[in-house]
């Protein structure tokens, strides 16, 4: 067996497992060895469930040997951001407040992954309570970017970005309230999709902002993202926001390309102040999409300037509402940047929160008619900057990271980030593609088509 099992894609590993040419036991061992060798440098995991994973891997191997192959996640090692409940495991949220919490049952995402046969390797580092975009956490330490361990991974799903990019697991589950799946995907050179609001259940996740929270996968390529999303998408009565919309077969249409798909490129806001290296990679990605037959046009993004303020006016009061007892009783146990944001949330007048929710409804209708009535996809750079050095990442870094992603949290549309190049310093850059509500299939298809004519996702970090 090859020595670099950890670099297989999910699709490749699944084929080998189904043909019984690869045992889940070997695959899990390969990942655990990788974790053992590298996580001291990367700090991607909070809890490693090595014994449980080995037991589950043997169970999967026995099942497959007995002819009960469940599908493409059977025997595949995955890990979840440490705000997804994993039965019997700690769920710290990267916080001192939740340090002693042990989950009694699986989150719905965890349950669906296990039902599909995935092997849970452990829980992943994050920005404290998922309220931040750098991944710098005073309690757990920062997850470190595999492309340069002196740099941030982006967050808040920081450990997922590092773990997947470094080959410690095949998929990392993340959450995205203002960009927290797409930002670490972009900064770590992997794929990450935020599905439509309501597409994936949040039951069993620690909430940050129930009006804006989305759950989704980070993987090393788009095909793998489609495979994982297929398993975790779908209605769950346990999440009040969960949609009953049908879930199509994402993999079945993945290869249909982008010919004659109309891709809109915002003529303002989204490229204001973008770093030159990022801008160059993004513009080259647009040229390649056009070469694939996509029809590009510019459009003026409605109400773009008001979106960040509206997002903050919803997210921060909701975050404070959930964490208010901790803020009153143990504020000194909360990291300074998160405490500051929660204090801002506490101080928002109710009228401003409600106004922002009204704005969101109006925004959705405006974009539905004026933008997605004319085009199929929106393309932007995922972030304005590549990964900054850990010791130079501050509030301005956060703003540079979230500016282009958070509009699609307010809108609730699906949006993916895929690698589209590297800076002169060798740090990854991401292309963001957003589509219509519940049309993840088109988003995945366009991203897959782009990925198929580039080699960015096949490059490996120098670890």
């Amino acid at each position, binding site marked *: 067996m090859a020595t670099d099992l950890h670099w297989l894609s999910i699709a490749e590993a699944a084929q080998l497992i189904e043909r019984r040419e690869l045992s889940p036991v070997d695959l899990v061992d390969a990942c655990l060895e990788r974790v053992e060798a590298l996580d001291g440098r990367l700090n991607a995991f909070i809890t490693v469930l090595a014994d449980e994973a080995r037991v589950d891997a043997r169970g999967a191997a026995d099942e497959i040997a007995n002819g009960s192959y469940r599908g493409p996640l059977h025997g595949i090692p995955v890990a979840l951001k440490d705000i997804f409940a994993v039965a019997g495991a700690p769920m710290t949220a990267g916080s001192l407040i939740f340090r002693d919490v042990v989950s009694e049952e699986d989150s719905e995402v965890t349950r669906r992954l296990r039902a599909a046969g995935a092997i849970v390797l452990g829980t992943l580092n994050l920005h404290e309570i998922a309220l931040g975009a750098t991944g710098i956490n005073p309690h757990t330490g920062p997850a470190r970017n595999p492309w340069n361990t002196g740099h941030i991974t982006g967050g808040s799903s920081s450990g997922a970005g590092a773990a997947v990019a470094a080959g410690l697991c095949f998929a990392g589950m993340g959450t995205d309230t203002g960009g927290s799946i797409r930002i670490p995907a972009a900064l770590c050179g992997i794929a990450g999709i935020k599905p439509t609001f309501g597409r994936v259940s949040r039951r069993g996740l620690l909430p940050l902002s129930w009006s804006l929270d989305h759950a989704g996968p980070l993987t090393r390529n788009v095909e793998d993202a489609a495979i994982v999303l297929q398993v975790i998408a779908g209605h769950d009565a346990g999440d009040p926001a969960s949609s009953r919309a049908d879930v199509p077969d994402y993999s079945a249409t993945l290869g249909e390309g982008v010919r004659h798909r109309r891709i809109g490129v915002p003529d303002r806001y989204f490229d204001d102040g973008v770093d030159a290296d990022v801008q160059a990679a993004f513009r080259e990605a647009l040229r390649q999409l056009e070469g694939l037959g996509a029809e590009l046009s510019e459009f003026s993004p409605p109400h773009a300037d008001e979106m960040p303020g509206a997002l903050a006016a919803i997210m921060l009061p909701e975050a404070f509402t959930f964490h208010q007892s901790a803020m009153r009783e143990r504020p000194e146990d909360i990291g300074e940047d998160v405490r500051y944001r929660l204090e801002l949330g506490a101080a928002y007048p109710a009228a*401003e929160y409600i106004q922002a929710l009204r704005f969101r409804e109006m925004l959705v209708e405006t974009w539905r008619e004026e933008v997605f009535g004319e085009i199929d996809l929106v393309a932007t750079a995922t972030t304005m900057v590549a990964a900054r050095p850990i010791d130079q990442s501050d509030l301005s870094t956060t703003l540079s990271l979230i500016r282009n992603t958070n509009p699609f949290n307010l809108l609730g549309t699906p949006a993916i980030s895929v690698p589209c190049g590297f800076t002169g310093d060798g740090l990854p850059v991401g292309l963001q593609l957003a589509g219509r509500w519940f049309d993840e299939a088109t988003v995945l298809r366009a991203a897959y088509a782009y990925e198929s004519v580039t080699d960015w996702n096949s490059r490996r970090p120098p670890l």
Partner: protein
Amino acid sequence: MDQQITREDARSSLIRAGLSASGERLDRLVPGLQIARAAAAALAALEMGYSGPASFRAPPLADVQGIHGN
């Protein structure tokens, strides 16, 4: 909106939420609240109309006139 947020505004807001506040923390909070207030003012300036669920939407004027028989 030109209204300036003061340290006292910030302190009052936090106290209403059950939080205590010290001088340095208040100093840091004031600029953030000022930005938040400006952002909220931008939203308030938009003509958003009524955007609630359709079942609660006010009937068109013609329908209202019909009710009154004119």
